[in-house]
Every structure is written in structure tokens, then in C-alpha cells.
């Protein structure tokens, strides 16, 4: 084989030229954080969602900053979901719309001090971002520096959950260096957390080192090596092969392959439900919605599709929102379900268009189970399964009768009202159920206006009952996330809100 081997030699001769491509991710590691394997005790973490906007806090990537303890806001959330001090030592509400925050003494990773002015600048930048961070979408606030360590924040209308809002990673306080003239924001070396990003290589990896000037003390781990692995099986494989110490979100199909002591389950704030289109098609009829509700049994999904990593649905909010348990309001006044014969008669010739998306592996499987349950109740079902962005416009336009939907119920604010308002009020921007019900609107508005925490929670549960009464949504299961953690790692945070993972105390044994 003379000629092909010449070609082969040529190809092999080219390989060293291209070998630089391997290093594209690692080229400056030696100059940056010190060599990778050199520093013992560094944590190796596999995250699931690659950076969309170079870790800008105004994008999807914001949670990475809080997960890895890179940046902090004025407040943080504690385990019960209440606001806790972070960069702000304390705060008080002066009147309905003004709050005063006292800052603690802290410094940014670039050496500059955290001052009231830097907080004001950071919040101003968030306000002026081209696409406003979601957490600011329903509020407008202005910040003012009173003195070196006092900030006053004024909101246009009363905002009882402002301290919760400020805990959002999108409102992390970064140093002046982070904000470029063209509107981009870079958290590299500009946060205040115990870990500092020293290198970000595209969408593949990042290196973090301990920030010794952190106000809360020194982190136990000397640094973190982050790699982004989008494929769940590959993440699980990386953990099993010993390439990483921590792998987040192991898919349920892979969880059983992990050793028992590496797999940790966390109740998640995600609820999977069947959303019925009340605006057009067969489910405008409340008795048919009721029939669908009675036909569908979410608990059948728990041990099958979710492999045990889910809880049967109790309502819109699950065990990850602990206060809901004792406050649940009984649902009354539901429509009477149509019998199988009635369903058949009323849907004659019409098929139920059941949509779901491929982005979450469990949903298409769940749809197939639900299809069988609905068919038993007399519906004729046709599935449409695509990538989410390929169908979102159609969903919002009401082109489907039902959607198997996985939704985060506590959004950036850590407050449940935001989710209810966007998904179930008549003018909600994410109202896929096309629900227009004045009682629901009223109940959600009442919850939004309440400032007393306990009373607010009670009103949220009342709104939940109102929504469930309409049968616009049938909760199926509350998901659990499986985090893979090697046995020699201690102190990983298992957070239902998916906001924290590694902090000061996380380290290798």
C-alpha cells in the first residue's frame, strides 16, 4: 500500500501541527493557577450547563458564580429559603419602599475594597443591562450610597421580598473592573467570594484558586478545576472513572450505576406537571380537564421513569419548599369529571395533541406513560416531541392541548409568587395553559402584596388551591436531583434551589 501510506504519513506529519488544538483549553494553565495536578487537594468538579455568556451574571451562568462561591450579593438564602446576611451585615425596612443595608468590611478579589459606591454601581449595571436579569423584571429599584458602608435601596412599588431578591446570583456585587464599556460583565477575578476564577477556557473548563482575603476566612480547598460536561452519561462516567470528584445532576438512568456512597439525592424545586391548554382545543371544556386529571397518575412515574428519584406530587410545590407541608389548602369546587363514554363522545374525531421536549430525558418517557393513561380514559392521543426551542413559540401560541412540563417553582427571587404570576395570571408572560380566571388572578395578586412572611406563605397556598381548582395544571411528580460526590470529598452543599454546591468547608479528606 505505497500510496495510501504516504497519505498517512502526511496526515501524521500534520498531527503535531494540530496538536496545539488539544492545548487550546489548557494552554495557559501553567502560567495561571499553577499546574493542575501540582496542587494537591484541588477539587475537580463536572458541571452540566456550559457557559452561555462567559459567566456573565446576567445570563444562565449566574448560578455557576454562586455554586462555586465566586461572587456574592448583599444577601444570601439560608436553608429554609429566608434571607441571610452576606455582603450586607444587616438591613432594615424604613417604610414600604425604602430599605437600608449596612455593609460589612470586605474586599474584592482584585484587591479593591467593597464600598457603598461599588454596590450602587453594581446594582445600576444590572438595572441597565440590555436584557434585564429576570430577578429585576417585575420591580424597579434605585440604590444610593449614604456613607462608605450604608446603602439605601428604594423600590417604585412596595416589594416585600427585596432581601430575597438581592440574594440572586444575577445581582452579585463585582468590582468596577468587571463592567466593560460595551455592556459585558466578567466575573474573572472580580468577585468577593472565597474562590477566584483565574482562567476561563471557552465552554470547556475553568480554574479557580482560593481567595485568601475573603472576609469569612480561608477556604479549606486550595482551588477548583471545573469542567463542563453537557452529556449526563459522560458526567457519570467522569465520576466513575475518577476524572472528577463531584459531578452534578446525574441522570436517573445512570444513578444506579454509581456506588451507593457516591450518590446523593436532593429534593429539587422542579415540579413536573401536565399543563392543559384552557384557551383553545378540547381542554376548554372543564369536565374534560377534570377527566384528564383523574386519568393521570403521576405516582406511576416515580418508580419507573424517575427510577425512584422523585416524589409523588402533592401540589405545585413539593418537599423542596418545606413550609408548604403544613399550610396546604384543600382544593374545592372542581368540575365534575366526564366519564369515559362522555369523553369519547365529546372528543369525537379530535385528537389530544400531547407535547413534550427532549431536553430533559425523563419527559418523553413520562409522555408515553401518560398517553396510555389518557387513552384509557377515552382520549385519542398524538405525541409531538421536540427540542424545546423548536416548539416554544408554538407552545406560547397555544397550538397544543397538553404539555408535559418541568418547571422550576422558585425562581431567582426564591419567592414562589414570581412563578405563579408568570405562569397562571391572565397577563402572565409564560402562561402556556392560557388560563384566564379572575379568582386565580385575585389570589395571586393578594399573595404578591402581602409582606408578612407567614401570611404570604398562606396566601401562596391559597393561590395554589385556586389554580388547581381550574384543572389547568395537573402536578405529576416533584423531581429529585442526584449529585455524584466521590467518597473522599466532604462538605458539599446539597441545595434544592441549585444555587450552592461548594463553599468554604468543602474539601478532600
Amino acid at each position, binding site marked *: 500500500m*505505497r500510496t495510501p501510506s504516504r*497519505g498517512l504519513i502526511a496526515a501524521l506529519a500534520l498531527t503535531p501541527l494540530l496538536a496545539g488544538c488539544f492545548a*487550546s483549553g489548557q494552554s495557559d494553565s501553567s502560567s495561571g493557577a499553577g499546574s493542575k495536578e501540582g496542587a494537591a487537594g484541588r477539587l475537580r468538579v463536572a458541571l452540566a450547563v456550559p457557559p*452561555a455568556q462567559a459567566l456573565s451574571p446576567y445570563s444562565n451562568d449566574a448560578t455557576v458564580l454562586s455554586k462555586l462561591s465566586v461572587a456574592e450579593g448583599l444577601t444570601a438564602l439560608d436553608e429554609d429559603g429566608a434571607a441571610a446576611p452576606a455582603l450586607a451585615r444587616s438591613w432594615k425596612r424604613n417604610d414600604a419602599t425604602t430599605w437600608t443595608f449596612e455593609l460589612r468590611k470586605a474586599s474584592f478579589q482584585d484587591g479593591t475594597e467593597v464600598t457603598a459606591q461599588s454596590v450602587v454601581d453594581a446594582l445600576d449595571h444590572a438595572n441597565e443591562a440590555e436584557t434585564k436579569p429576570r430577578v429585576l423584571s417585575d420591580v424597579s429599584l434605585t440604590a444610593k450610597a449614604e456613607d462608605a458602608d450604608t446603602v439605601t435601596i428604594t423600590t417604585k412599588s412596595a416589594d416585600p421580598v427585596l432581601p430575597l431578591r438581592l440574594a440572586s446570583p444575577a445581582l452579585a456585587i463585582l468590582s468596577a473592573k468587571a463592567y466593560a464599556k460595551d455592556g459585558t460583565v466578567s466575573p474573572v477575578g472580580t468577585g468577593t467570594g472565597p474562590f477566584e476564577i483565574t482562567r476561563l477556557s471557552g465552554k470547556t473548563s475553568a480554574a479557580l484558586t482560593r481567595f485568601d482575603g475573603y472576609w469569612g476566612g480561608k477556604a479549606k480547598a486550595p482551588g477548583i478545576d471545573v469542567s463542563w460536561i453537557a452529556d449526563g452519561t459522560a458526567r457519570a462516567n*467522569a465520576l466513575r472513572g475518577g476524572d472528577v470528584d463531584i459531578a452534578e445532576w446525574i441522570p436517573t438512568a445512570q444513578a444506579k450505576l454509581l456506588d451507593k456512597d457516591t450518590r446523593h439525592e436532593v429534593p429539587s424545586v422542579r415540579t413536573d406537571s401536565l399543563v392543559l391548554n384552557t384557551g383553545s382545543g378540547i381542554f376548554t371544556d372543564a369536565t374534560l380537564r377534570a377527566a384528564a386529571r383523574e386519568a393521570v397518575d403521576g405516582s406511576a412515574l416515580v418508580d419507573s421513569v424517575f427510577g425512584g428519584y422523585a416524589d409523588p406530587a402533592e401540589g405545585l410545590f413539593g418537599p423542596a419548599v418545606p413550609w408548604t407541608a403544613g399550610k396546604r389548602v384543600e382544593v374545592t369546587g372542581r368540575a365534575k369529571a366526564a366519564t369515559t363514554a362522555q369523553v369519547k363522545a365529546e372528543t369525537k374525531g379530535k385528537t389530544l395533541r400531547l407535547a413534550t421536549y427532549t431536553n430533559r430525558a425523563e419527559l418523553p418517557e413520562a409522555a*408515553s406513560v401518560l398517553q396510555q393513561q389518557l387513552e384509557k380514559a377515552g382520549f385519542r392521543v398524538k405525541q409531538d416531541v421536540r427540542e424545546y426551542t423548536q416548539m416554544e413559540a408554538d407552545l406560547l401560541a397555544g397550538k397544543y392541548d397538553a404539555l408535559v412540563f418541568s418547571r422550576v417553582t422558585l425562581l431567582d427571587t426564591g419567592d414562589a409568587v414570581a412563578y405563579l404570576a408568570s405562569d397562571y395570571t391572565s397577563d402572565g408572560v*409564560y402562561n402556556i395553559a392560557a388560563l384566564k380566571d379572575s379568582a386565580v388572578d385575585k389570589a395571586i395578586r393578594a399573595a404578591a402584596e402581602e409582606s408578612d412572611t407567614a401570611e404570604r406563605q398562606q396566601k401562596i397556598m391559597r393561590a395554589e388551591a385556586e389554580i388547581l381548582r381550574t384543572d389547568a395544571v395537573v402536578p405529576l411528580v416533584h423531581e429529585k436531583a442526584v449529585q455524584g460526590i466521590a467518597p473522599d470529598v466532604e462538605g458539599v452543599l446539597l441545595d434544592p434551589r441549585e444555587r450552592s454546591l461548594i463553599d468554604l468547608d468543602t474539601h478532600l479528606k
Partner: protein
Amino acid sequence: MSVAHGLAPARPRRWRSGAGRVLAGAGLVTAVALLPWLSRTDPALTVLRARSADQDPSPADLAAVREQLGLDEGPLAHLAAWLGGMARGDAGTSWVSGEPVLPQVTGAFGVSVTLMLGALAVTVLVAGLVCARTVFLGSRRRLRQDRVSTGPAVLAALPKFLLASLLATVCGVWLGWFPSSGWEGPQSMVLPALALGIPSGAMIGGLLDQALPAAFHEPWARTWYSVGFPPGHTARHALRRALPGVLPQLLPTVVALVGGAVAVEKIFNIPGLGRLALDAAIAQDLPLLQTATLALALLGMAAGLLVGALRHALLGRPLRDGALPALHRPALPQGRALRWVAGSCAVVLLGLVAAGLLRDPLHVDTVARLVPPSVAHPLGTDSLGRDLLARLGHGALRTAGVALAVTAVGAVTGLLLGMVPQVSAGLTEAAATLPAVLAGLLTTAVTGASVWGAACAVCLVGWSPYAAQSAALLEQERASGHIAASVSLGAGRLHLLRRHMLPALVPALLRNALLRLPTTVLVLASLGFLGLGEQPPTPEWGRLLSENQPYAELAPWTVLGPAGALVLLSVLAVSGTALRQRSA
């Protein structure tokens, strides 16, 4: 024909093929630039989604994105701005991340090309092993029995993503020989290169193995043998005769992996161009997508020119002078094994389908999930407790039917385009490297989600291997002596085509098409996420494989059944047609 104007000036021809290439590239980039406007999917929404997955799509945010990206100016203004930038070496900034596009694309391109070269090395190795027996026997004149080896058909039918999963699990996780994921040095290249190269090598080797006996039965080989030339010498020259017909297949089989290895890139977490282009396509991040498409088209054309030059170097003067002896497969007695193989494949497949058709493929039984093969479920059950035998049986007809139809359309289109190589060369090269997903998106843009969409999309790009093959073989055939003789005896074009060209071309084309059948099944299924093709839960072999892939390690039977069925189909197709050809 070619003889008639065999010495025609080369320049107009080059000019024509050059224009063809420019047109093909320009057409492709324009089609991509128009994508959001054709599909009427608002890029503001998809870009917003890519930036922030849980963001509520409020009208104010969408308007902000629209204004930021200048979407209201329309597609042409945007395309013009991008082209203007390209002229200055600036490909613009990504709509999603706001970062410059060029470094992202060049980085991913470098990674993918490196991986492709690794796969090429494996391909050459595997192809060599596949042909080793024929080369050894042929060079010693011991090639007495015709043998259609089914080995290549088996290997070529292995789904690459399944092979990748298997290698990652066994060599990466269990044995720890190589990293199971990442891209950190030559050692991370081994497993993905194997996963990509083994099926490709089997494909190329299968085609070469088919062409070699003809070379060994040419008069020169007999003379050299009787004179006592060493077998190695004969083998080299036989390869030199047979290779030029197969080389163009490297383009759609190996070079296409630069943009088309998405599944393997995902499994091994390789930051390659396939994933970059896929993400850009889903987010409708046009600057990134256009640049990636352009890079792929340019790569395809460069590789096409290189392969062309290599072919001409191998064939040399005889091709130019029209003095190339035609390669014709010798009539050898046929082995009996072939009948047995074809017969048993047919019996097993028919048995599977018949047994499967008697069962319910859609019945979900969540209690009996992932049950291993047993009397009640001979092939086991899937993750929803559905009977796999039933799903295989019910899916057989639809899967095989659609795949055969798509392959037939592709082969005929390829044959027709291959007859006008100067015009179609650019188009063939561009289509060869175009990822099927992009074709799928273009199809959805025009037809919307539909049952036939997947078939249309695959037809859109699937013809390129056959066009490349036809063009190469026809060129060689035209340069052969007997064509010159026919022409001098007054044969017309139609006569030449019917009596000389097609008979020489069709067997090779057929074998190529049949070896590609399993790939077609998988590509058809891979477009499901765009809403193309039959929707779940309809059983279809490609879908069976992809929906059970996550369970490959936990419950291997869920993928072994469909993969085995695909292998059987492929072997049956290859051996069955070989039988027919011989007996005809």
C-alpha cells in the same frame, strides 16, 4: 465522449467546476442566513433561551434582544454586514455570548480536524485489515472462489454512538486505560477515533475489497506472476488500480466527521465543531452558524480537490490519454457460505418480525421495566416495560422501507449528478460535509414538522457519496479503451451509457448504498428532536437505539436487540444482492 474531446482545453473545465464550487458555497451560506426567516421562528426567542433557560419570554426582553441584534433590518442586511466583515477577516460576534466568532470556530475546527485525522488513521488500518485476505490471496493468484465477506457489513452497521458508549464504559470507566471524556492530549483521542474509524474503515474496506479482484485478474498481473515478480509488487499495483475508485468515498465517510460527529463528541465531551454548529443552529446564532457552515464547506472543497489530485496522481497518464483498461469483476465460482449467510439472516429477521407483529409494541407496563430476556419477553423490555420484540417487529417494515426509499432516491440523484461532475463537484463536496441536522433545520424551515420531513432532509444531503462515486468511476470508465473502440464504431451517447457506463457503475454503487443503509436508519432517527419523522411512541429501529442508549450499561439487551437487527438487515442486503448479481 471524453475521448472525443479528450484533449479539450482544461481551462474552461476548471473554470466551470470553480464556479460550481463558489455557487454551492454561496447558496449554502445564504440558505443558512435565511433560516430564521424561512422557518418563521423568532431568533430573539431562541437566543434568549440559549442565554437564560428559565427566563420568562416577556415582550420587553424579546424587543431588547431584537434591537440588540438588529433583527428588524431583515436577513439581507445582516448577511451583507457579515460578508463585509468576513472580507476583513472578522466573522462578527456571537448573538448568544457576544464573543468574537472566529476564535470559537477555529478552535473547534482544529479539534474536529485533529479527531478526524485520528479517525482517518483508524479507517486506513481497518480498511487494510478488511482487504488483507484478498490482497494476500490475489497477489499469489490464489483467488479462486468468490467470497462476499459479510464482516465489513457487520462492522459498518455498528452505530457509532453505541460503539462510543461501549468504549467509554469499558476502556474508560471499567479498565481505566484512557480518559472516558475530555480533550486533554493524544490519549483522549484514542477512544473517539476508534468509535468513528471502525465503521468508516469497514465501509471503505468493504468497497475496496469488492474492487480488488478485478485488478488482480487483469492480464498484467498474470504476466507478472508468471515472470516471478514478488507478490508485494503485484499487490501494490493492484491497489493502485483499485484505490482511485474508492478514494472519493473518504469525503462523505471520514472528512464529513468534522461536522457530523455530534453524538460521539457529546459522549466523549469533545469541544468539536459538530456540537458548536448544533448549538448555534438550535439557538439560531447566525454569525456562528454561518461561519461554521462556511468552514465546513471550504474544508469539503479543499478535501475534494486533494482527493481529486490524489486520484489523478494514482491513475496518471492513462486517464488523460484515454488508455485506461476497464476494471471488470472476474466471474469466479461462488462460495456456498454466502447462500447460508443470506438464508439464515432472512430466516432470523422474518422470524423476529413475525413474532413481533403478534405482540403489542405500545403497551406500557411500568412494573415490568428493564426486564432481561425471558420466556414472556424474549428480547426483554425497555425502560417503560414495553416488549422489545414487539417494538422491533412493528418497526421493521417502516424502518427498512423508509431507509431503502431514501437510499434509492439518494443513489439515483447521486448517479445523475455524478454524470455532470464539473457542475456538481462543488455541490457534492459541500453536501458531503454538511451536517444532517442543518439539512433537517432547512427542511423544517420549508415544510414544518412532518412525517416525511426526516426523509426529505436525508435525501437533501444523502446523495453526495453516490455522486462522488459515480463521478470517479465514470471518469475512469470513459478513459478506457473499449469506450474508444465503441465510439469509433459509431456508438451514440445513450448506447454508451446503457451498455458500458451503467453496467460498470451499478454494482459498485449498489454495494455502497447497501453498506450505508444502517447509517441512513440512524441519521433518520437522529432528526427526531426537530419534530421530523414519525413521532414517539411509534416504534422505529433508529429511535429504539437512541431512546435506549442511556440504559446501554444498565440493561444491555435494550440496545443489543435493535443493533443486532440492524446488523442482520445490513448483512442480508449485502449478501442477498451479491447472490442475485451472480445468478443473473
